[in-house]
């Protein structure tokens, strides 16, 4: 018994319940016989990958769903052996080059070229080209992206590239200009409510009150995947749903931990407190919560809780440290500096108030 989120994932473009216009565009594209390179972008949980799979299915038929995982080995110029997992069907290959960090260029060069230089062999294929799906394209290094540029043009007969990322900000211009940009916006609250009550609840034969669905949609930050998962965890926790269950919808563990840090910094501003917070940040980082996520959640929590007067300053300082986090190396240093900066701003504010 798979989780609901996987059980009820739509497999064809027709089954999509929201962004109908995008779906019809994609359908037209895939039926037109030719396909440009595509760049899907949008927040997580909006349905990018679902749409990519559905599009591929539209193009190649259900054979696309027969996927398998391969582990490929590459040798870097420095003679280090790296492994990367690829997911492939006979028509497409999905890779996630960010798994190999700074060696992603090698993967792009070798794997994609290798795939691009061979023609589609299967006689049953409807199209001449193969498709390579690159996940987490925004974490591709600049080198790798440059390696991609020429390949995309040169082997256009054999190969289409579908990039999938959260934001186009980190995709270099040349690559963007070679792709058709497809933005998948986050579903609206109503879309999620419809999905939860209309699809999941109906198929699972449970009743989900609209208030609860709305609450879940808001708490999940309009992330469809998270919303369905949250619905299921609250179902595991308590069923039938009651009207007052809103409060007991469990937040994800890591969000609770981040809020704890934010509260600590609001309570007291001292070296001891900073030391305590450092321990908690270490804990989050070592449990695979990315530093950017921590910083973002801290910033939003603080901006929400501080006085209006401080809000702009908070935003500026969050942006500064987010930037430094990107160009720096040791995340903890910057997160700590950010917390310390917040403490100093907040403390100064408190002192000003008490002196009046």
């Amino acid at each position, binding site marked *: 018994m798979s*989780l609901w989120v996987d059980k009820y994932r739509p497999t064809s473009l027709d089954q999509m319940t929201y962004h109908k216009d995008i779906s019809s565009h994609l359908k037209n594209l895939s039926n037109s016989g030719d396909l440009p390179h595509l760049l899907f972008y949008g927040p997580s949980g909006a349905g990018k990958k679902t749409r990519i*799979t559905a599009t591929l299915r539209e193009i190649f038929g259900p054979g696309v769903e*027969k996927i398998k995982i391969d582990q490929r080995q590459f040798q870097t110029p420095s003679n280090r052996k790296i492994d990367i*997992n690829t997911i492939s069907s006979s028509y497409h290959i999905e890779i996630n080059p960010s798994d190999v960090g700074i060696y992603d260029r090698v993967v792009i060069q070798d794997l994609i070229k290798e795939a691009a230089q*061979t023609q589609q062999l299967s006689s049953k294929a409807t199209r001449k080209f193969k498709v390579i799906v690159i996940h987490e394209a925004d974490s591709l290094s600049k080198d790798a992206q440059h390696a991609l540029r020429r390949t995309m043009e040169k082997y256009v007969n054999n190969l289409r590239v579908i990039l999938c990322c959260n934001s186009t900000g980190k995709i270099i211009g040349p690559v963007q200009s070679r792709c058709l940009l497809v933005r998948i916006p986050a579903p609206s609250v109503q879309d999620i409510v419809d999905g939860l009550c209309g699809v999941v609840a109906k198929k699972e034969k449970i009743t989900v009150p609209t208030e609860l669905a709305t609450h879940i949609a808001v708490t999940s930050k309009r992330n469809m995947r998270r919303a369905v998962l949250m619905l299921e965890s609250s179902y595991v926790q308590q069923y039938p749903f009651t009207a007052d269950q809103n409060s007991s919808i469990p937040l994800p563990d890591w969000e609770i931990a981040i809020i704890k840090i934010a509260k600590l910094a609001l309570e007291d501003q001292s070296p001891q407190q900073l030391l305590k917070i450092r321990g908690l940040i270490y804990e989050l980082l070592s449990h695979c919560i990315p530093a950017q996520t921590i910083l973002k959640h801290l910033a939003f929590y603080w901006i929400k809780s501080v006085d209006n007067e401080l809000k702009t300053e908070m935003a500026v300082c969050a942006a500064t440290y987010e930037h430094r986090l990107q*160009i720096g190396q040791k995340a903890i240093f910057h997160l700590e500096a950010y917390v310390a900066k917040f403490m100093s701003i907040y403390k100064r504010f408190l002192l000003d108030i008490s002196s009046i």
Partner: protein
Amino acid sequence: MPPKRKAKDSTDPPRKSAEELGVNVIDPNSLPDVEKKSFNFMAIKGKGEAANPGSKEIPEGKPDCLLGLTFVITGELEGISRGEAGDLIKRCGGRVTSAVSGKTSFLVLGEDPGSSKISAAKKHGTKVLNEDALIDLIRKSSAALGDAAAIETPDAKPEPVAKRPRAKSPEAPIKREVKETPSTEMPSRKKIKSELPPKAIEKSPQTPISKEAAAISELWTDKYKPKSIKEICGNKSGIEKIKIWLESWINGRPNDKNAVLISGPPGIGKTTTAHLVAKSLGYDVLELNASDTRNKSSIERSLRDLTGNTSIASFLKSESAPLNKKTAVIMDEVDGMSGGDRGGTMELIQVIKKTKVPIICICNDRLSTKVRSPSALQVRSRIMTIACRENIDLKPNVIEQLVEATQADIRQIITLLSVSKYYKNNVDCIPNTKYALYFSSSGFNKKEITHGPFDVIGKYLNMSNFNSQKFYEKVDLYFNDFSLMPLMMQASTNIHLIGNIPKDQLSYIKAADDIASGDLIDKAIHRSQQWSLLPSHAVISCVGPAYHVRGRHNGMYTFPAWLGKNSKTAKSFRMLSELQMHSRLFTSCDKNEMRQSYLPTFYKTLHKPLIDDPDSIGDVIRTMDDYCLSREDWDTLSELYIPPNKGADLKSQISTKVKSTFTQMYNKASHPISYIKSSAPVKADSGASQAVPDFDGIAAEDDSVEAEDSSGKDGEEDDDISKDSMIKPKKAAAKKPRTSKSSSTRGRGSKNGTGRGRGGGRGKKTAS
């Protein structure tokens, strides 16, 4: 301080006593008893600092004004730190020891004195000075000395006069030494002297004089290289051991070990010892040191012939050569055999195993230092001999300082002496004490010492240490270990601040900001290899934060937690990526989404039923199989989950019985796996041959579905139905344990023909 240094140098020149000079001396018996305190390392750590530095005017003090007096300092002084006080006394010719004995002249008393020293002073009736009195004593006695010098110049400097003829008759200084200090001569020192054979003293001084012209171009370190075993300072027993070992070599067979390893700090005579011992026993020496290439082939070339052969080699060499000539191999600087000398060490080991000639290996660093540095006393006599041969007047206490400054590196002392000779044209007219000042105050002769990270962090964060260092010294500290110091700083700043009252409320914030900026530089250094940024990194990552948070020491400095946390993070990500890959066929998310969205739900759905209902184990395993999760992934879940508070961890709430049943049940059945690692030895090249039986193992349905799938481009709706029908039988079938794992690892011809093993993830869906 080693106890032997407590001995008092009682070369008492005629001088006025402290009382005569009108210095305020305290009777020890008038002192109150100090209660013995329990030893507290942390309390001691901050001690020895001047409470109020610069509050008193410290006299320069004439050299020799305290000659022959021994001091013990206890407690915290007010205007001068203990170290500085000690230096001052030494500069004035006095001695400073650590404990009070009968030979101690004065006990210098500060705040918070040690109980044992006070009681010892009472026992021995030692005179007690407070800080003011000490300064007074120095001031007055240097004044007295100056007077004396002014009046009776010829008599006041008896020593240079007495020493001058020493250069010509080498026995003179030693005899005189003995005469001068008959009562206090340490027994060990006498022994060393007596061990210096008259032959060596008689013979060797002739060399520099007779070959004076040649000697000018010669390095002193070579010139005064010991020419016989007896001349080597210290380590008698070690040398004896080597000698015995070498003597045991008879006819190309040792009766003990094949090789010997000498280790110890530089400049204490390891190479010399090896050469001399070998020479004294009539061995020919072949030396290989770091200047030779010592990789595998070259060692083989140069040593194989030699070590494999015995006397026959010399037999063939020439008629006139003595037939019994033996050879020894000295491998110098073996610890330098790395990097470029690929395979050299291994080859050396091989050679040692088979050798027929003795091999002596020499290195600096070994875990335990076998060759100890000779003590100051042992070195002194040697240096004295050299000094008098080169017409340099050196006083014993100067030598002692030299030994201390160079950490008993004889080679370096000799080099220093030779440099100072050329530096001052006329050595004779320089007063002895100038050397002492010259050596101890000018930093140039100070041996570079590597500090441990904990020492360095102390030097940064301790207020007085920080203030007393020059800027470049602070930067230099960073270079003791430039990869670790920023981390140490980050780990220590906040801990250091707790309990300290910083001058600035926001100092810790500034420090955190500096540390973060330092990281940006660090990244720039490593990304674009701009190592010239290191000094800037030093300033921003270490000196800056230290400036903000410096203060009194409290608490321990901790080892940077970052290192551990970082590797833990890497490990967690590895586990997460495994989890994601295993379930990848059925989920559609990246690692972050897996962690942030799926994991909390997985965690609950795979743990909660086990707590509520022990019979649900089957269901849990089925869910895991649906996602191809392994038992390890199940552990990963709880490891990556952050329980909101302690005790809320669901895994710990599962009873042990259920847990073990769960493991048993899981292990009993075979489970689908989504892929096989290419590194797995299952099939590197036998994919095709295995494919046939594997296909047999799968139900025939699979083939038909595959055919249907691949031909299903025109009938998608039909395929959907067939897919649905595929899911349903699987669920029914899942209750039975899978027949064999191999059914899910069907080999498939890969598109690019690499022939790597791969698992057909979908295969198991149809297994029934």
